């Protein structure tokens, strides 16, 4: 299963064949995007590490060979093949607060391995927000 790291340090698991953007959306993350179908180029990010592939055709008007070679990643179409690290361009990764709330709720239900009992501290639940 590929993993995606967004600098400086958000890490999410991706499904096989899932694009960078789909994976981030599924985990409740967002940034400025456009058509989400490879036509406009607004969701371009920098590929810092790892390999992506483009199973869907992408117009060279939107992403040309030079950009591909120099590490531009069209995030709505790029599917990571392995552990991939990206950096956003003049954009901040936003987390949907309801997803953060759900993470905290999950942490309350399932105590982390090695910790007996089902009553994690408030600090622990809040910590899950900031993983």
């Amino acid at each position: 299963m590929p993993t995606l790291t967004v600098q400086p340090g958000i890490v999410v698991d991706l499904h096989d064949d899932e694009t960078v953007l789909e994976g981030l959306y599924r985990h409740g993350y967002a940034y400025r995007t456009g058509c989400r179908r490879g036509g406009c180029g607004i969701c371009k990010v920098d590929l810092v590490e790892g390999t992506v592939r483009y199973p869907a055709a992408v117009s060279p008007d939107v992403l040309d060979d030079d950009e591909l070679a120099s590490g531009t990643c069209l995030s709505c179409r790029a599917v990571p093949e392995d552990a991939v690290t990206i950096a956003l361009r003049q954009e901040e990764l936003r987390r949907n607060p309801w997803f953060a709330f759900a993470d905290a709720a999950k942490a309350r239900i399932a105590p982390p391995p090695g910790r007996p009992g089902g009553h994690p501290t408030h600090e622990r639940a809040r910590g899950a927000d900031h993983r």
Partner: protein
Amino acid sequence: MSVMRLGYVHARVTDLAEAKRHYGNTMGLYPMHEEAGRVYYKAWDEYDHHSLVLEEGGVGLVKLGYKVSDPADLDRYEKRAEQFGCIVERMSAGDNLEVGDGIRIVLPSDHVVELYSDMTLVGTEVGTHNPDVFPRHLVGVGAPRIDHALITAEDPGLVDRFFREVLDFYAAERVATSLDDDAQIIGSWLSTSNTPHDIAVIGGPNSKLHHFAFELTDWSEIKRAGGLFAMDDVPVDVGPTQHGITRGETIYYFDPSGNRNEVFSGGYTTFPDRPTVTWTVDQLAKGIFYISRELNERFTSVLT
């Protein structure tokens, strides 16, 4: 006589198979002809051979075709377009599949518009003899008709003038920098029929497409289309909502190549003698999206 309507949109798509899934299965258009790298579609209530041509390779607009009512119109519009300073060339029957003689005009905004008076008549899906009100086996949205396109131009005022002075369109509505006489035109909704726009132009880069639209009968059809977009994972830009400009009801969404489409219903009935409505830029968001009065950045920046 004059220009009657938007006859065809010719657009580029990155993947023809994906595009066919969208325009065929989701929008419910009828494939009329297919050749290497191209497919031709017609909507069910249209009677000419096709209204949408998809060409594989790239994104955006190749050209728009507008149908005139009489072959003699072509000569008149050819002269006027040349006098306006446009590049104009003649096209022959067969240059476009099933389309007769015509002229090809490069607009001041570098968009290509073709005028023609004849396209092979194939008939609507319900025919002309005691017709039913809709075809029984529509697929997906089942759009009856293509409606209009919005293009972007560095000088929208010049494109407004072209369509009025050369092609006898009239401006139903405009967005302007002020209500003063020396106001600059930021956008224009131009009609050659009884609907509020057969073409619209807004400030932006030359030769780009903002969207092309399919007409639906009413608001409930817009909502139903939205349900189908959810089922088929069509990325929605904005809507369902209502426009101030045109008063039409709408959803904007993207095809699988990122070209923006619209489903559009309603809109007032208009005539060439209707006084042009002017919106000032400070009220632009209300003009475009009357209910939310907000323009999202995606809507104003994604072009193909």
